[in-house]
């Protein structure tokens, strides 16, 4: 079950740059206390009369529920459009309208198995916190974080603090191993006989991770970043073709049934398509 989300006005207690990204720490009662790794918040952007109506979704990078500010969450913002640029330019003491925690968290293994975290760009934002939980559970942890270039790699510091091995990849070779996270994943997995891979990042990366996990007989839990208008399950914009427990593919809302899915349920090749065997596709004539 999802825990109940709240809408609340949070207060920014710090903004720090890390490479290409801004990490915003927000004091917000009611979210930090119940949030778990993999869940996300949505943030209204542009102020009260903003012409940008759609809230932006951010995975919760970490929580601190014992800070002197009350509950605090961190989000990692990649300023790429007008909404995220507005957010990245916020200052300490500014207010933000937040809704969360939303979505389903990463499932945590019952037994202390070997696990691998794979993060692409700012997709790595929610993984160090997950790693901390996995280590507390006694799991072996290997992290692979990558991006196109060094400034876009997130999580080096955080990963070092948590422990386990860390491999960095960049496509241009500016940091770590030249190449992609998926180039090094098979070796990391087989070295310690990984049972579960957790991944967050762009869809093609998740699709490749899913394939590698399957080839290695491991489970992959992937957190998707699908475009969302509402984040709370009421608009139907964020759907993916997901295979349910009866083997039927349904257009499934990633905001409330995800954002974390067992990769074996996700029909990656059919994203942005409407395959004829999807439940209800036969009724689509006309529209």
């Amino acid at each position: 079950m999802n825990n109940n989300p709240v809408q609340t006005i949070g207060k920014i207690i710090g903004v720090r740059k890390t490479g290409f990204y801004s990490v915003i720490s927000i004091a917000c009662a009611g979210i930090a206390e119940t949030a778990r790794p993999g869940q996300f918040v949505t943030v209204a952007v542009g102020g009260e009369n903003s012409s940008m109506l759609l809230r932006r979704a951010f995975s919760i990078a970490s929580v601190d529920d014992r800070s002197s500010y009350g509950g605090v969450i961190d989000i990692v913002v990649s300023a790429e459009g007008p909404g995220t640029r507005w957010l990245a330019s916020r200052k300490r003491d500014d207010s933000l309208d937040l809704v969360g925690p939303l979505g389903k968290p990463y499932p945590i293994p019952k037994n202390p198995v070997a696990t691998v975290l794979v993060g692409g760009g700012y997709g790595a934002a929610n993984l160090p916190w997950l790693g901390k939980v996995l280590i507390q559970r006694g799991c072996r942890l290997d992290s692979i974080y990558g991006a196109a270039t060094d400034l876009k790699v997130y999580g080096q510091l955080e990963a070092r603090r948590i422990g386990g091995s860390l491999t960095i990849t960049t496509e241009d070779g500016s940091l770590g191993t030249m190449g992609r996270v998926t180039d090094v994943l098979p070796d990391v997995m087989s070295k310690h006989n990984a049972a579960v891979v957790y991944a967050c990042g762009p869809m093609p990366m998740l699709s490749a991770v899913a394939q590698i996990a399957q080839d290695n007989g491991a489970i992959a839990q992937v957190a998707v970043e699908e475009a969302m208008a509402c984040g709370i399950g009421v608009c139907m914009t964020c759907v993916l073709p997901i295979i349910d427990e009866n083997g039927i593919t349904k257009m499934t809302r990633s905001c409330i049934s995800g954002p974390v899915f067992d990769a074996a349920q996700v029909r990656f090749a059919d994203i942005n398509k409407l395959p004829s065997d999807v439940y209800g596709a036969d009724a689509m004539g006309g529209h």
Partner: protein
Amino acid sequence: MVGTSLRGSGPANAPIDSLLVDSSTQLGSVRIPAPVFTASGCAASGQGLDNFFDIAAIGGIVTKSIMLRARSGRATPRMAETPSGMLNGIGLQGPGIDDFLENDLAWLQARKVRTVVSIAGNTVEEYGRVARRLRELDWLTAVEVNISCPNVESRGQVFACDAAASAAAITEVRRALTSNTPVIAKLTADVTDIVGIARSVIDAGADGVAMINTLLAMSIDLDQMRPVLSGGTGGLSGPAIRPVAVRAIWQVHAEFPNLPILGMGGVRSGADALEMILAGASAVSVGTTIFNDPSAPWRIQRELREELGKRGFGKLTDAIGHAHTVFEASK
């Protein structure tokens, strides 16, 4: 009514404490204790909003348009943000009427939420078949008929764009339901003569109209150089379309002053809701704004009472169409 005309010409009546403002309203013969509804397709069946406010305390939930069979909806991308608005092309994803009755409607009834069921069809006959499944449900507040659907028997021409097709769908629905269930025809402003369409659905037995549905629109992705939405075109909603909605409500109210109108299209605040009521709406629906602010229906209901009180309206019903009175008096 003396107070009303005074307000039109002279200075406004003395402000009234918003807590004393009676914001109950009438949709035809039905009294509604609160004036703000959710717009169809923007609240699913209400469950997702119940975390943010008491959904039984607003006018009601208008459910996502339901059709006879389960529908997958369109491929993604299904939406695009636009200035003060958004485009959507969901394709009426839904579980089909049977599953909807068993799950969504059962939940709404148990939760004691005033409910308007929005229905849609591909053919005139299908509108009737969906409506018949609702016939025994005398607890429903109303049935809203989304006629912005392509008519497969008329080369995909949208029902709501043709007076005869609109009337045929409404006649069929009216016949399928008992007279206890009000029928609200949902109109589009993408027509040359919305008053003519309104007349045809009134003649066909509609008890009221809801307007406006989204406006047909398109965004093009400049990187891929193709339309953003998988279906090419989509529906524009949000504050960007509000002046179009106000105009449509104004025109229809001018012609049919006693017709209940459920106004919608970009309502974001109590002031926006008041604008629609002054133009002739008896109640409003809030759609896209919910995505921006999930507690908006509740907030707007409170703000609307304040806006009415500030202008000396003790009763919401006194404000319905009031801008017409003032406008006429000023001529």
